[in-house]
């Protein structure tokens, strides 16, 4: 067990114009499952590979526990990784795959067999130990990859989009299994995904990365309720938060000709600005006769909820808007509704920097 600390850690690929990971400061606490999430190209997998020792740091420091591992070989870091495509050794059986690291470490045959059996039991793989990877289903391969990591009892687990090759149903099931396994073993885990639902459901804390820069790292609840900037606001939540450039005055922001009251701290932070980026989640609208009018272009019915899609006329032109309503009697496409923002459920961001106001 150990905590992991990135201190001003950067990674620049040779010939790249800018760093793929830029001055990352991040701590994974002892026993924590921290999920690293971001769009493709955000550098999240590179962060993982830096920790694994597969990509060198171009500057900064990387610690596992008290040990500076920045310059150590992958094998000297006591870290196990689950690869996106599992990277099982095709010529070895499941048992040999799981015991390979122990064999290299000189662990006796009996002890190896015991530990492989323990891990196999935990993952329900006992019946498959003699099989080769190509004779396994996707879900089974995924579990073998997990097993290979567990057997070693490493200080840190790394998981690189381990569920992305599974079908939707299996993904949900495996998500739960990984979470409970991690809780049981208590091994510090860094988990990379581009799927924000995975991030929100699995992570004790979630770190959001964009263009190689850490945007925010906090509990899923805080990320959702108080996003630090417009990027996090738009990335976390599905459908995404509505982000609208609107005029602002001392009395609040104006949305579709209707005043939206802002918290005093927000107004204070917005002093001197004539406009700001207003963030409203789809579920933060309510129907109200005195609200602004939205013409509905299309309706997505999901059963319990329905999402209304329309265009809102703003100063800069029309902006798309998504609104969640009760799914039992949604308005039809082509009709119009009057809406207002629920009290206190509004986010405001700086129009240029995107940073949260107040």
């Amino acid at each position, binding site marked *: 067990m150990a905590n992991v600390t990135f201190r001003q850690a950067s990674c620049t690929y040779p010939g790249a114009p800018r760093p793929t990971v830029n001055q990352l400061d991040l701590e994974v606490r002892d026993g924590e499952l921290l999920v690293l999430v971001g769009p493709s190209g955000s550098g999240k997998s590179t962060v993982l590979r830096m920790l*694994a*020792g*597969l990509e060198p740091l171009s500057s900064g420091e990387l610690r596992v526990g008290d040990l500076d591992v920045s310059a150590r*070989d*992958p*094998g*000297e870091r006591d*870290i*196990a*990784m689950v*690869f996106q*495509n599992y*990277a099982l*050794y*095709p*010529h070895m059986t499941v048992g040999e795959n799981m015991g*390979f*690291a122990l064999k*290299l*470490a000189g662990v006796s045959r009996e002890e190896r067999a015991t530990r492989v059996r323990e891990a196999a039991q935990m993952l329900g793989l006992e019946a498959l130990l003699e099989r080769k990877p190509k004779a396994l289903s996707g879900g089974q391969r995924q579990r073998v990859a997990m097993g*290979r990591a567990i057997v*070693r009892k490493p200080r840190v687990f790394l998981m690189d989009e381990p569920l992305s090759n599974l079908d939707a149903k299996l993904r949900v099931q495996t998500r739960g299994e990984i979470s409970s396994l991690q809780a049981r073993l208590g091994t510090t885990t860094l988990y990379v995904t581009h799927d924000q639902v995975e991030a929100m459901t699995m992570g004790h804390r979630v770190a959001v990365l964009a263009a190689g820069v850490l945007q925010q790292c906090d509990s899923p609840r805080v990320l959702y309720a108080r996003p630090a900037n417009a990027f996090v606001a738009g990335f976390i939540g599905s459908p995404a938060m509505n982000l609208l450039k609107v005029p602002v005055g001392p009395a609040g922001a104006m949305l579709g000709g209707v005043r939206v009251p802002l918290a005093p701290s927000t107004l204070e932070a917005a002093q001197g600005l004539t406009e700001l980026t207003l963030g409203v989640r789809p579920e933060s609208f309510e129907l109200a006769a005195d609200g602004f009018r939205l013409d509905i272009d299309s309706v997505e019915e999901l059963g319990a909820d329905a999402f209304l899609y329309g265009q809102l006329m703003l100063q800069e032109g029309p902006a798309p808007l998504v609104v969640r309503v009760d799914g039992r009697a949604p308005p039809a496409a082509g009709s119009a509704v009057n809406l207002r923002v629920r009290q206190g459920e509004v986010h405001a961001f700086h129009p240029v920097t995107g940073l949260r106001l107040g």
Partner: protein
Amino acid sequence: MTHASLLRPRRLVTYVALLLLTFAYLAPLLWMLSTSLKSDAEAVSSTPHWLPASPTLQGYTSVLSAEDAPVLRWFLNSLLAASLQALLVVATAAPAAYALARLELPGRKVLLAVVMSTLFLPPVTFLAPSFLLIGWLGWLDTLWAVAIPGAASAFGVFFLHQFFRSLPRELEEAAALDRASPLQVFWHVVLPLSKPALATLALLSFLTNWNDFLWPLYVLLSADRLTLPAGLSQMQSSYTIHYPAIMAGAVLASVPVLVLFLFAQRHVIEGVSRTGLKG
């Protein structure tokens, strides 16, 4: 496939063309086999026959019992030399190719280019220097002279280099995280996964050596030290036009090749297509 689709005009043209091509390739082999079963008289008859009128094994018995032509000895010599060379080529090319494909070495690309540039030299240019070297080593008229010079193969390095680069890198990374040293990664992960390519290279090396004619003729002098192709060529002069015996020798020379291909066919096709050298 139904008979109707088999007989569609375009298909028909394709099949006829393929059959003709197959025949063009097979004809010399069939002729060799046929002649080996003929009598001396029939072999030189003015109207050639595809099928021997009265098949006889005379050619085989005479080639196997000829006192000045120890064909079995030559066969064994060829087998030894070609097998040894095939083993050595794989043993030297695999580590070299892996180092050039994956290890972080300064000047790696230059090194690969130098190795590959030797492929463009005509093989004949090596005859004299190799001969002098073999003489200096005292290996003239020994099997070492036939097995060793080709044992470090630039083609082998290139071929395996391409193959190793096509292996998924994650496997080697996973092994590195499992605390495997580069040598252990090579031994426990890369080599087992490369069996098709290694088999292909071994086979190609074996065949090159097996069929080589000029070099053994240079360095092997005593009658009982010759390899099969070199020996058979000597027979031609001493036996003037004793065709059935020569063809019987050629059939014997082809048998190992055909047997090897039969067993290794699947591996070879896989090995060649995976290295992207197809066609």
